[in-house]
């Protein structure tokens, strides 16, 4: 089945490009620090704001550190954590949303109103709150982002699950006396997965930016770490003087986000058994 899924994913154009982009990103995460041409933390005062050239391919930052090397090293602390945070948030949100749609009535009302209450707090503020109570650090930041993502995912999932709930196969399962957990996990969840996957892949990009914001505020990754969001945040002051410092990590984040989106589109098609390609 999973073998089959990968083959079908490869056959869609978006899936193929997404897989290639993310494959490169994965390589960067695994071997980035070994491949980096220079020490990402080596300070070179003579080379401050050096434009891209032979010495520093993507230029040097305000401390003369090689941007390319920092980028390659930073992949490891950026992508896996953003992915982890999104997956945790998605999973929690999807189960809550499907459960809420399945239970219906007063339970649905109670769950969704609580979710609305949580959503009334801006995501960043919620993440800030959680990190300051959990303590600084990258893992805590990931957890905070996951929790901040959960209500939104629950809403998206619930709306899809409501239409699935009305389908006769769910009624048939209720009529034959299936357990609630079976109906939620086996009958409904596989049928709501499509939109959820797409939403997830879009949120990975948000997660990267949220990490950057937390790092900028001093609650996520700590300098001199080369986390991409932190790089963007640090380079913000020099955007007119040396635009390459901010452009390089921003483009890296963008490409990663596009890679996830394409993979999401491909997965949506590959997960649909009706798609016979």
């Amino acid at each position, binding site marked *: 089945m999973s073998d089959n899924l990968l083959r079908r994913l490869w056959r869609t154009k978006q899936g193929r490009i997404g897989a290639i982009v993310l494959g490169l990103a994965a390589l960067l995460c695994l071997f980035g620090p070994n491949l980096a041409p220079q020490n990402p933390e080596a300070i070179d005062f003579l080379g401050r704001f050096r434009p891209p050239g032979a010495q520093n391919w993507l230029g040097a930052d305000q401390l003369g550190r090689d941007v390319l090397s920092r980028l390659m090293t930073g992949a490891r602390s950026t992508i896996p954590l953003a992915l982890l945070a999104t997956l945790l948030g998605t999973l929690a949100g999807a189960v809550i949303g499907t459960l809420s749609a399945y239970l219906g009535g007063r339970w649905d009302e109670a769950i969704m109103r609580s979710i609305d209450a949580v959503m009334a707090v801006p995501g960043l503020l919620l993440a800030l709150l959680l990190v300051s109570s959990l303590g600084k650090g990258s893992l805590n930041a990931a957890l905070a982002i996951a929790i901040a993502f959960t209500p939104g995912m629950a809403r998206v999932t619930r709306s899809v699950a409501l239409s699935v709930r009305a389908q006769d196969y769910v009624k048939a*399962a209720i009529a034959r006396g299936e357990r609630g957990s079976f109906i939620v996990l086996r009958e409904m969840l596989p049928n709501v997965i499509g939109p959820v996957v797409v939403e997830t892949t879009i949120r990975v990009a948000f997660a990267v930016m949220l990490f950057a914001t937390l790092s900028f505020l001093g609650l996520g990754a700590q300098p001199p770490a080369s986390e991409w969001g932190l790089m963007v945040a640090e380079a913000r002051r020099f955007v007119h003087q040396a635009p390459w410092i901010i452009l390089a990590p921003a483009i890296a984040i963008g490409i990663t986000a596009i890679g996830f989106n394409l993979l999401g589109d491909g997965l949506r098609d590959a997960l649909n058994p009706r798609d016979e390609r």
Partner: protein
Amino acid sequence: MSAVLTVENYTLDYRTGWGLRRALDAVSLSIAPGEVLGLVGESGSGKSSLAWAITRSLPTNAMEAGALRLGAEDLRTASPQQLGAIRGRRIGMVFQDPSTSLNPTIRLGEQVIEVLMRHRGLDRTAASAAAEAALADVELRDPAALMRRFPHEASGGEKQRVVIATVFACDPELILFDEPTTALDVITGARILDLFGRLRARTGVAALYISHDLGLVSRVADRVAVLERGVVVEQGVPADVFRTPAHSYTRVLVAAVPRPGHRLVEDTPPATTLLTATSISVRYARKRLFRPAPPAATHAVDFDIRRGEIFGIVGESGSGKSSLARALTGLAPFTGAIDLDGRRIAAMDRPYRRAVQIVFQHPDASLNPRMRIADILSRPLRLYGGDSAEVPRVLEEVRLPASYASKFPHQLSGGEKQRVAIARAFAAKPALVICDEITAALDVSVQAQVIELLLALRRAHGTAYLFITHDLNLVRQIAHRIAVMQEGVIVETRDAADLASPDAHPYTAALLAASPAPIG
């Protein structure tokens, strides 16, 4: 006089990912002025493709050959401007579902006025008066009030009348009817057909009437063409085509049409009662703070089903027959009592759920699209003390090959999917199977096969059926007793044989009169 519409050697292909797919193959038809041509075919036979081709609404992947002419004008080479003057003005269209062919956010009157201003060049006041006259023509009461209403404030029959009024108001040469009564109740549909008969006699319009229902077409059409997979296999006067069909496909179609006189079940069930339902009331929503409680879907309905009996429930949509099925399977909350085999069912327990199974109308919706057939069938087996190894046997029972176990539902045809749904119900070895309109979504020839299968399963297992349908002709063929429901109440329960007797309830008589007369 020359023909209104000429279709000459018309071939249509769709370019798909798997190569060309032929929808219509060298179709030749012509409709004379004032003539109604019936086009009959099962789903996928290309009848709607022909309607789209005539209105030039084909998708971009269509490839055509042959000629389509309206009078002397070639439709295929007409420019968009010319088409704008033809559609609605010279060719009128009536679609299947009036609730989707009318814009839900525009008042009914506006929708008629707009068409009249566009096609008859009237100004607003003149169009408004003409619209009112047109609505009066289709025998709508109080047209002025109706014009101020939105589509959701009108009934299905009223909406379809508004559509027909709009079409006739433009005085077209040709009207395309695409299953115009399929989405309506039998009685409403019969009235719409009568109306069309009167309007046609007055205006002398020509029409192409597309339908899957042979009985209906034989009443409406002057001539009929039978379409099989894009090929016209037979053409002629309805009475001749249906009484002495020349082509084998027409013979299959005609044989599959249910005839109430031809009983398929001859035995009488034993007198032992299997299930008794006492004053079942289903109510969907409670009284809210500022909202009164909605009327109950069924009011204190009583009935009993004998062991091995086929008990039919007929009625129009909204009469509460499906609510009854949902109550009996524990899908809808209800008040009242159910006794199974003399045992009072307090809560839906496992033995009851095993004994009473349900098959739904749409096999597309009742089979989980992400599960393989084997998984779908092994659930009830495991739940009710069977074994997944029995899946091949269960499939064989509904005459499907064991290799289907590894397929997904979308890889099966509609009839095969319904067989899987039936297999799922029978996997529990039930005493009663509730069939909720199970053949309504199927073609007539497939319907005959499914009914035949149900009867064979009943002979093998002695299962009783609660057969819910709106098709009186079908249920009179198989049921032992029939209950007629109207507005949540069973108005009478009779033996199938004397349903048509003169002392029947007036509503039963109305239903019988509205059911399309069987052919031949």
